[in-house]
C-alpha cells in the first residue's frame, strides 16, 4: 500500500511491543484470549496445567502490541501484559 503522505514523526514513533505473562496455574482454558486477540498472538496448546485445563501459548508474541485486551478479558486473572523494548520503526 502506498501512502501519498506520511506522518511527520514517523521515524520517531516506535510501535509498542508487548510481552505476555501467563499464570498457568490460574488458567481454566476458556479460550477468550485466543479468540479475541486482535493480532492472533495466542493459540491453544496441547499442554495442560495441574487441573487439566489446556493452556495457551503466545505463538506470535512478536505481533503483540500490548493492547491488553487478553489481560482485560481473561476471567481468571491469568494474563498480564508488559511493554517490552519497543521495536524499531519498520517503515511503510
Amino acid at each position, binding site marked *: 500500500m502506498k501512502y501519498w503522505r506520511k506522518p511527520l514523526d514517523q521515524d520517531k514513533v516506535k510501535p*509498542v511491543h*508487548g510481552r505476555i505473562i501467563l499464570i498457568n*496455574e*490460574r488458567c*481454566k*482454558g*476458556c*479460550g*477468550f484470549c485466543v*479468540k*479475541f486477540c486482535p493480532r492472533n498472538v495466542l493459540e491453544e496448546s496441547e499442554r495442560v496445567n495441574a487441573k487439566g*485445563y489446556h493452556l495457551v501459548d503466545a505463538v506470535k508474541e512478536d505481533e503483540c502490541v*500490548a*493492547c*491488553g*485486551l487478553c*489481560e*482485560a*478479558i*481473561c*476471567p*481468571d*486473572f491469568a494474563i*498480564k*501484559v*508488559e*511493554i517490552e523494548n519497543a521495536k524499531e520503526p519498520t517503515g511503510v
Partner: protein
Amino acid sequence: MSGNNDYTQIDNLLREDRMPHIWCPGCGLGSVLHSFLTALNKSEVPLDKVSVVSGIGCTGRTAGYVKLDSFHTTHGRAIPFATGLKLANPELKVIVFSGDGDIGSIGGNHLIHAARRNMDLTVICVNNFIYGMTGGQVAPTTPLNARTSTSPYGCFDRPFNLPKLVTAAGATYVARWTAMHVRRLEKAIVEALLKPGFSFVEVIAPCPTQYGRKNRQSTGLAQMDYYKENSIIKHGADTKDVDIDLNGQIVIGKFVDIECPTFYDLQTEILGKTFPHMSKTQAEEASA
C-alpha cells in the same frame, strides 16, 4: 492502552491470595470484575473510601475477591445494606455488585426503592439469565423458551427488562454492556461511579455451565461470540425497546444519563430549611 498503564493494573485491588477464584471455566464474572477494578482505578475515587457490597450467588462472591472494604451480605439485601453504609458515612463510594437473581428477584423491591430515592449508589448487576450457584434454575431475567432446571420445557415466565425497570423507578444512569465489551464496560463503570445518584450497569455475561449448555451455547466462548455477533450498540435507546429474546439480538449502550437531585441533595435541602447547619454537606463538615 497498554497493560503497563498504571490505571489498568489491578494488582492493588485484587486479593491475589484468594486466586484462583471459584468461578467455572468460561464464566464471564472474572472478566466483569477485571473491568470493574480497572474502572475503579481509572475513576480515581479514593480507594480507602470505597466499599463493595454483594448479595448471594456466584456474583455475590465478588466482594470476597476485592482488596477493598467489602461486604458479602444476605440474598437480595446488598442494596439496603449499602444504603445504610452510605447514609452512615456519605463520604464513602458504595458499589453494589451482584447478580440478576439477587438484585432482580429476591432484592427487586430494594432495587426499585433505591432507584426511586436516587440513592447515591452504583449498582453493577451481572445478568447471566440464570441462578448459577444453586444449579441453574429459572431467573427473573430468563428469556421465554429458555431451558433451565426449573423450566425444563422452556421458560414461560416473562422476564424483567432490568434497564426498563430501573429507568421507570428513577435511576439517573442506566447502561447495558456484555462481558465481551470489556473496554466499553470499563468506560461505563467509570461514568457510573462518577455519576451522582443511582447508577445502574447491567452486564450480560456467560454462564456456560448452567445456562449455555442447556440453550445451544455450550461454552463460555460460544456465548461471548454470540454477544459479539448479536449485540447492537444503541446509545440513548428507549429502555422499553431493549428486551432480550432467547438467542436474539442484545441492544447495548448507555440508555439513560440524566441529572436529578439525589437522596442526599433533597435531604440536605429540605432538612436545611429547619436545620440551617444541614445545608452544609457532611463532607464539607468533615473536612472543616
